[in-house]
């Protein structure tokens, strides 16, 4: 059955050995894969535990990588702008670690990292000490070999979208190249490192964006809370800007076309603050001058150099000496190309602002501009509102005056109507009274023969009765005439449509107006009393004028005078105050002068020039139209070519002087419609 049993056993034994070897290999592979998985899981855990902070992630990653790749030490490098910098170091000698943390290093083209920069994904050196880079005497490989004892090196590129972010590099302190498997392993760590870096970048960006948004939101809140008030807004902007730009201090200044004035400042040293408080000017030749010319910003790395360069310019000198300023950033506040001001950020050490910080300060400047525009709009809106309110108030006053004037006009018409209605029956009274006197005379004549036959006593009684009747009728006639005179005055006054000129006795006109005004005042207020003094020039010749209009002028002047003395009485004059209105007329040959003087409250000097303006009144609403003096002024000056002036002492007297020329300008356009 079995041809060669020993051969078969050997064959079986060989097969068994093969299977055992296969099992061992597979077990090792499984263990390796498990270890790798565990390592990856641990790394991922670390990544999750420290979002954004890459150092612990890289360190955990390096620890695993060193173990799995059987390497002595490892470094995670960051590549940025041609320089390479160690961000995580594990297992290196203290000397080499100290060398690495000393700063960034340039990347030599022929070095392992140089190959990665050039585009390779893997750089594997069996012996650094045998590389061109080392042999050419570069300090970086020298330090690696001499301080770190590094010999075999494996460097993998960390790339994102083709951009080199850094490298993960593991080193052996003996010459023993890495296996393909180890290279694969490290590649998986490299992939994780890229993910971690990307995560961290996203987290940082998100956080920064969030912080900026928060800062902007805070500023906007301040803008909302202080409409039109810029100081707190500027202060908030400055605080946020400086926190984000890592500035030690700075100021926000407004520009008036020539110089800058601080409106908000943050931690500015007192002496420098005092210096800029007086306003600063930028000279075209100095490094800030470009701001005025339209530059987006001015960034000075070391102001002390500028101060030395421009010894005659006091600003850089003061900034360095008084403010201790070294690095400086100035960003303009511009709206539609107009320079509104600047926002400055100063550092007391020489440390340039990053591009991001410059952008940030610019965006804060933009907010300051928005706030300034808002404030301007609010101020303009407020001004417009105030103006509108004032116009409305004025309109209301004018309207009230017009309503009053309208009332007065309708009252005038009413007066005219009443006067007419009274005039007719009054005519009958006067006529029949006159007739009755005649009839009584006739009766006496007709009845004379009969009366003669009466006894003496009866005749005497009859004669007495007839005489009394006649006397009564004459009294009726007399008072009837008086009433007729009043009615005529009322009609003349209410009728504003005449303007007809004729030669008049001015004394009589003034006297009539005075009586009319006095009785008018008495009719309104029974307690009203005043001493009327007439000092009329007996030699006053007739003067040609529009009697109705001139009467109106005097009625107005008299009633103003009455008002003034009543006011003085009401405002607590001494008990022996005796109100007097004195009217004087004087013949001046070519003109006639009439003075109306009262001892009332007087006119304050500041309003005496407004006195003749339409609608100007000192009387409470409803008592005066503010038109009286303006109409009087028109009548005297415009219509009669005369003049009306006022002299007054508050609390003592007011005297109006009216001059009417004999050959005054005959104006067809009347002041009164």
């Amino acid at each position: 059955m079995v041809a060669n049993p020993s051969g078969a056993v050997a064959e079986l034994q060989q097969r068994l050995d093969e299977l055992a070897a296969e099992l061992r290999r597979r077990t090792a592979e499984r263990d390796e894969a498990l270890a790798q998985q565990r390592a990856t899981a641990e790394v991922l855990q670390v990544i999750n535990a420290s979002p954004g902070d890459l150092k612990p992630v890289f360190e955990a990653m390096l620890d695993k990588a060193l173990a799995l790749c059987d390497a002595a030490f490892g470094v995670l490098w960051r590549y940025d702008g041609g320089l390479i910098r160690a961000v995580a170091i594990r297992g290196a000698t203290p000397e080499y670690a100290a060398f690495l943390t000393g700063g960034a290093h340039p990347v030599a083209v022929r070095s392992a990292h140089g190959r990665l920069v050039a585009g390779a994904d893997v750089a594997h050196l069996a012996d650094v000490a045998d590389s061109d880079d080392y042999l050419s005497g570069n300090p970086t490989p020298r330090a690696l070999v001499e301080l770190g004892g590094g010999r075999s090196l494996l460097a993998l590129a960390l790339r994102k979208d083709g951009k080199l972010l850094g490298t993960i590099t593991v080193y052996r302190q003996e010459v023993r190249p890495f296996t393909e498997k180890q290279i694969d392993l490290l590649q998986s760590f490299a992939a994780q490192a890229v993910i971690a870096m990307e995560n961290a970048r996203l987290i940082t960006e998100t956080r920064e964006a969030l912080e900026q948004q928060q800062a902007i939101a805070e500023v906007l809140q301040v803008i909302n809370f202080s409409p039109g008030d810029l100081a707190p807004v500027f202060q908030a902007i400055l605080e946020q800007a400086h926190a984000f730009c890592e500035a030690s201090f700075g100021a926000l200044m407004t520009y008036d076309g020539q110089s800058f004035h601080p409106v908000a400042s943050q931690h500015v040293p007192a002496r420098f603050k005092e210096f800029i408080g007086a306003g600063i000017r930028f000279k075209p030749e100095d490094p800030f001058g470009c701001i005025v010319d339209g530059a987006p910003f001015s960034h000075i790395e070391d102001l002390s150099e500028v101060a030395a360069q421009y010894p005659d310019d006091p600003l850089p000198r003061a900034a360095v000496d008084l403010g201790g300023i070294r690095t400086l950033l100035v960003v303009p506040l511009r709206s539609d190309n107009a320079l509104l001001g600047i926002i400055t950020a100063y550092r007391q050490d020489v440390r340039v602002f990053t591009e991001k910080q410059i952008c940030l300060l610019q965006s804060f400047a933009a907010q300051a501009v928005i706030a300034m525009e808002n404030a301007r709009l609010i101020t303009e809106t407020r001004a417009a509102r105030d103006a509108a309110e004032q116009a409305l108030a004025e309109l209301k006053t004018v309207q009230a005056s017009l309503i009053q004037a309208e009332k007065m006009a309708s009252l005038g018409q009413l007066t005219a109507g009443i006067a007419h209605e009274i005039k007719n029956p009054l005519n009958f009274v006067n006529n029949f009274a006159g007739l009755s006197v005649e009839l009584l005379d006739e009766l006496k004549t007709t009845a004379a023969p009969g009366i003669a036959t009466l006894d003496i006593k009866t005749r005497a009684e009859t004669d007495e009765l007839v005489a009394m009747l006649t006397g009564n009728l004459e009294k009726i006639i007399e008072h009837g005439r008086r009433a007729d005179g009043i009615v005529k005055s009322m009609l003349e006054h209410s009728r504003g449509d005449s303007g007809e000129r004729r030669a008049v006795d001015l004394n009589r006109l003034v006297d009539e107006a005075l009586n009319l005004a006095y009785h008018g005042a008495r009719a309104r207020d029974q307690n009203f009393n005043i001493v009327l003094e007439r000092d009329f020039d007996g030699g006053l010749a007739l003067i040609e004028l529009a009697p109705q209009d001139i009467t109106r002028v005097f009625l107005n002047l008299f009633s103003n005078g009455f008002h003034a003395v009543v006011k003085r009485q009401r405002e607590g004059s001494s008990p022996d105050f005796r109100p007097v209105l004195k009217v004087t007329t004087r013949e001046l040959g070519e003109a006639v002068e009439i003075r109306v003087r009262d001892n009332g409250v007087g006119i304050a000097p500041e309003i005496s020039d407004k006195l003749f303006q339409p609608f100007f009144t000192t009387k409470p609403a409803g008592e005066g139209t503010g038109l009286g003096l303006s109409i009087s002024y028109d009548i005297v000056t415009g219509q009669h070519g005369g003049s009306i002036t006022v002299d007054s002492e508050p609390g003592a007297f007011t005297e109006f002087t009216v001059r009417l020329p004999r050959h005054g300008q005959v104006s067809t356009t009347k002041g009164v419609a």
Partner: protein
Amino acid sequence: MSVSILIVDDEPDVAELFRQRFRREARQGTYVLHFADSGEAALAKLADEIEPQLIVILSDINMPGMDGLALLRKVKQLRPDLPVIMVTAYGDDERRQRAAEYGAAEFITKPVDFDVLKRRLEQLASPET
């Protein structure tokens, strides 16, 4: 030789006043007074031929119905030669102008000055002088 005067006024006491004022002339037979209390009544009287000869109409202006100015126009159409004197309490320019325009002989404002009126009537009664 007496003549007639027609007085037109809606106020009844006007008639009484004229009668008393003209009592001597009426007694002497110089004037015969006729009264109408409206423009319409005046036209009716005019149509009936007033005796003796009518030399003048004295008319108020403000009257209900046909007013004095309307009456004036009508009279001037019917009897262009008959003088009409307007008598009114409202002596304003507009009425004065219109009265003159319509051909009024005179415009008198109330209260009437009877002495002046009588002299005027004497002129009208003897036009040849």
